[in-house]
C-alpha cells in the first residue's frame, strides 16, 4: 500500500484558519474522514485537490506555496483524473443549465452509458421518471436537495467509470465526496455506498469521504467486511489551536459505545405524563398522523412521561420539525389536541399562552441548524443572558455549564468570542447547552447531533441521559436512526406520516 503524505496550512491575512500536521492518504484506497463541523475537513481537502483561490487565501501544501503546488504537473494530472463532490449540491450546480446537460459536461460526455449509475442512485427509476428529475433547470424547478445530491454523485461515478475504462497504470486519482449523504436518507446513503464499493472493487481509486455520519461505520462492518483492509477511518481533531491533526478513528470505540447505550427506565420507571399529543393533527392544510408501528397502521398519541425519551421518525420533508413547532406553538395547527404538563392546548389556544406558560419553562427546543438559531453577532457569554433561569448565571455557573461540553475551563477570551467565529461543532454545542441549561419539563431536540464529532456525540448523549434520569422528558427528532434506535426504548419510537 502506498501513501501520499500531506501537510496543509491555510491562512487568511493574519488569521490561521487551519494547520494540519503531516498526514497520510492511502493511495487507491478508501478513507472516511470524520470530525466536527467547521474544523477544516473540506478546506483541507479542497487545498489538496487545488480548489482554493491563492489570491484570497495564503495556502501552503507540503510547505510549498499554493501557486507552485497548483502549477506542479503532478497536481494538474491529479485533478484531471479526479472529481470533487461539494457538500452543498445547490452551489455545485449551474442554475442556467439542465441537470442532465450538466451530467454530460466536459469529459463526462465520454461516458456514454450511465444507466447503471442512475438506476442505482435513483433506486431503479425508469427513464421517464428520471427525465422528470434530470431534464430540468436547478432553478426555478428546484429539485429536492436529495435529487441534486444524487445528480452530483452520478457525475462523480461517471468520471470513475471513465477512468476504469481508460486508466493508465499508476495514474494518481483523488475522488472527494464532501458530505455526500447529507441530503439523503439511510436507504439512499446505503445505495451510494453500494455503488461506491462496486466501482471500487472493479478498479481501485483513491477516495476521501468526508462525513459526520458515524453510523456509516456499522454499514461498513455489516456489508463490506471483505473490503475493510482497504478502508481507513480517520478523524480530524483539534490539537493545540489552531493546529488540527488527522488521527486514526477506532471503529470498535463507536460500535462498543452503541452496544452499551442505556435505554432509560422504560414505562414502569417513568413518572407523570408531560406531553400527550393527539395522534392526528392538521397543519398548513396537511393532515399528519403519528403511529406506534413502522408499518404505520396503528395511530397513537405521542405520550412522553417524566424520565422518558421518545423518538419520532419520518423521511425528510414529512414534517418532523413541523410537529416540534406545533407542540411549541410556533406553527398554528388547524386541528390539534394536546396537553403539556396538564395544560390543555387546542388549535384555538392563543399564542400568548405558549409564550407565558411554555417557552423556556415547561418546554424548550434545540433547533436543528445552530448557525441559524444562535445570534452570531453575540458573544458566547451573551448567548446565555436573557434566559429565564431559576438561579442567576454567575461566571462560575457559566463556566460549569460550558465545561459540560467544552474541554476544561473555557476562560475569558472564549466567553468574549463572537459566536460567528466558532466552528460549526462548537456552535452546535452552544446551541444544545442554551436549551439544556433551562431544564424545562419537555426538551425537544431537532437533529441534536448535527455537526458533532464522536467525543461530543458521546458527551451530548450522556448529558441527555443524565437529564432523563433526573426526570426530564425528551423528544428526539433525528435522521440518525442507528444511534437513537440504540438509545431510545422501542416502545417510545413513533412514526410520522401524512394521512388522508
Amino acid at each position, binding site marked *: 500500500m502506498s501513501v501520499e503524505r500531506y501537510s496543509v496550512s491555510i491562512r487568511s491575512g493574519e488569521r490561521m484558519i487551519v494547520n494540519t500536521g503531516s498526514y497520510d492518504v492511502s493511495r487507491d484506497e478508501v478513507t472516511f474522514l470524520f470530525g466536527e463541523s467547521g474544523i477544516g475537513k473540506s478546506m483541507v481537502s479542497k487545498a489538496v485537490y487545488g480548489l482554493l483561490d491563492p489570491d484570497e487565501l495564503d495556502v501552503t501544501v507540503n510547505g510549498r506555496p499554493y501557486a507552485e503546488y497548483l502549477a506542479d504537473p503532478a497536481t494538474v494530472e491529479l485533478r484531471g483524473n479526479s472529481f470533487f463532490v461539494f457538500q452543498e449540491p445547490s452551489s455545485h450546480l449551474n442554475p442556467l443549465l439542465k441537470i442532465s446537460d450538466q451530467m454530460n459536461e466536459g469529459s463526462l460526455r465520454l461516458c456514454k452509458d450511465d444507466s447503471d449509475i442512475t438506476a442505482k442512485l435513483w433506486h431503479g427509476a425508469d427513464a421517464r421518471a428520471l427525465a422528470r428529475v434530470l431534464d430540468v433547470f436547478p432553478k426555478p424547478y428546484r429539485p429536492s436537495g436529495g435529487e441534486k445530491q444524487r445528480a452530483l454523485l452520478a457525475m462523480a461515478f461517471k468520471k470513475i467509470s471513465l477512468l476504469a475504462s481508460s486508466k493508465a497504470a499508476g495514474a494518481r486519482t483523488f475522488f472527494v465526496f464532501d458530505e455526500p449523504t447529507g441530503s439523503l436518507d439511510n436507504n439512499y446513503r446505503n445505495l451510494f455506498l453500494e455503488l461506491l464499493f462496486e466501482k471500487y472493487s472493479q478498479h481501485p481509486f483513491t477516495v476521501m469521504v468526508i462525513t459526520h455520519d458515524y453510523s456509516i461505520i456499522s454499514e461498513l462492518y455489516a456489508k463490506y467486511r471483505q473490503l475493510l483492509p482497504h478502508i481507513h477511518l480517520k478523524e480530524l481533531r483539534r490539537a493545540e489551536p489552531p493546529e488540527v491533526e488527522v488521527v486514526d478513528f477506532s471503529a470498535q470505540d463507536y460500535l462498543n459505545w452503541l452496544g452499551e447505550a442505556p435505554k432509560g427506565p422504560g414505562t414502569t420507571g417513568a413518572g407523570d405524563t408531560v406531553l400527550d399529543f393527539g395522534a392526528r393533527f392538521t397543519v398548513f392544510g396537511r393532515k399528519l398522523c403519528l403511529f406506534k408501528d413502522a408499518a404505520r397502521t396503528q395511530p397513537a398519541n405521542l405520550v412522553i412521561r417524566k424520565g422518558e425519551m421518545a423518538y419520532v421518525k419520518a423521511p425528510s420533508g414529512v414534517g418532523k420539525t413541523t410537529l416540534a*413547532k406545533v407542540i*411549541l406553538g*410556533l406553527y398554528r395547527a388547524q386541528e390539534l389536541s394536546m396537553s403539556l404538563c396538564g395544560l390543555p392546548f387546542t388549535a384555538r389556544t392563543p399564542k400568548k399562552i405558549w*409564550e407565558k406558560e411554555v*417557552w*423556556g*419553562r415547561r*418546554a*424548550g*427546543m434545540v*433547533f436543528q*441548524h445552530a448557525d*441559524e*438559531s*444562535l*445570534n452570531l*453577532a*453575540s458573544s458566547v457569554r*451573551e448567548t446565555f443572558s*436573557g*434566559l*429565564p433561569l431559576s438561579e442567576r448565571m454567575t461566571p462560575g455557573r457559566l463556566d460549569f455549564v460550558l465545561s459540560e461540553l467544552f474541554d476544561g475551563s473555557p476562560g475569558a477570551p472564549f466567553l468574549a468570542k463572537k459566536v460567528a467565529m466558532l466552528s460549526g461543532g462548537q456552535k452546535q454545542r452552544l*446551541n444544545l447547552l*442554551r*436549551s439544556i441549561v*433551562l431544564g424545562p419539563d419537555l426538551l425537544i431536540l431537532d437533529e441534536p447531533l448535527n455537526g458533532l464529532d464522536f467525543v461530543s456525540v458521546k458527551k451530548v448523549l450522556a448529558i441527555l441521559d443524565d437529564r432523563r434520569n433526573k426526570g426530564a422528558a425528551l423528544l428526539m427528532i433525528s435522521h440518525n436512526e442507528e444511534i437513537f434506535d440504540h438509545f431510545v426504548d422501542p416502545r417510545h419510537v413513533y412514526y410520522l406520516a401524512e394521512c388522508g
Partner: protein
Amino acid sequence: MWLLGLVAVGVWDVLFLNRPALAQVAAGFFDTFSVAFLAVAFTLVLAWGATLALHFMDAWKNRAPYLLLTFLLNLVRSVPQVVGILFGYVGVSALVQAGVLRNSVFVFSLLALSISIFVFIEFVDLMRERIAHYQKLDFYNAMRVCGVSESRVVNFDILWKNSRIHVLNKLISVFGAAIFLQCSVDFIISVGLSTDVNSVTLPATMGSLLAKIDSKQDILAIGYSLTHPEYMGNLFFSHLQGVTVAFLIVFSLMSIYHIANGYAERHRL
C-alpha cells in the same frame, strides 16, 4: 479629511476674515451642526420608539392602535420633507416672536425636532425591515422558545447586535440630510418668506448666512471669477464670508456622503 478641511478653513478665516463676519460664520456653523446633531438624536429616539410601538401593537388583538399609528406615520410620510420642516420653522419662529421661547436650547431643540419628524419614518422602515428579516429566521423562534423576552430579542439581539451598523450608517445619512434640509429651509425663509423671521427670531445658520446680501454678492463673485479668472484671487480675501459658508456646506455634505459610503463598504452593507 473633513476635520482637516474645517481646520484649514478656520485658520484661513482667523487670519483673513474680519471679526464680525468671522463671529457670524462661527455662530452659523455651530448652530447648524448643533441642530443637526440634535436632529440625529431625536430621529433615533423617535424611530426606535415608533418601531417598537408598531412591532408590539402588530401582535395585539385590537388592531385599532396599530392602524392609527400606521395612518399617522403615513400622513407624515405624505408631506414633502422640505415643506414639513418649513412649517415647523415657521411655527418655532412664531413662538419666538410671541415671546414663548426665549432659551436658545429650546429653540434649537424644536428646530431639530421639526427636522426629525419628517426624517425619522425612513428610519422606522429600516428597523422594521431588520426585525422582519430576523423574524423569518430560526434565530428569532429559537430565542423565544428559550424564554428570552420579545423585548430583549428585538432590542438587544436584532436591533443592537445585528443592526447597529445599519443604524449608524443611516444616522450618518440623517446627519447629512439634516444639514442639507436646514440650510435649504433657512435659505428659503431668509430669502423669500418673511422679512420678520430668521435674522431676528431664529439663530444664525449657514443657510441664513448664505441668504444674506453680502454672501449673495460673494457667491456672485464666484460666478464672475469663472469668466474673469484674474479676479479669482480676490475670492479668498474680499469675498471670504460667502465663500467660506458655501465651502462649509458643500464640503461637509460631500464629506458626510463619503463617510457614509465608506462605512457601508467597510461593513459590506
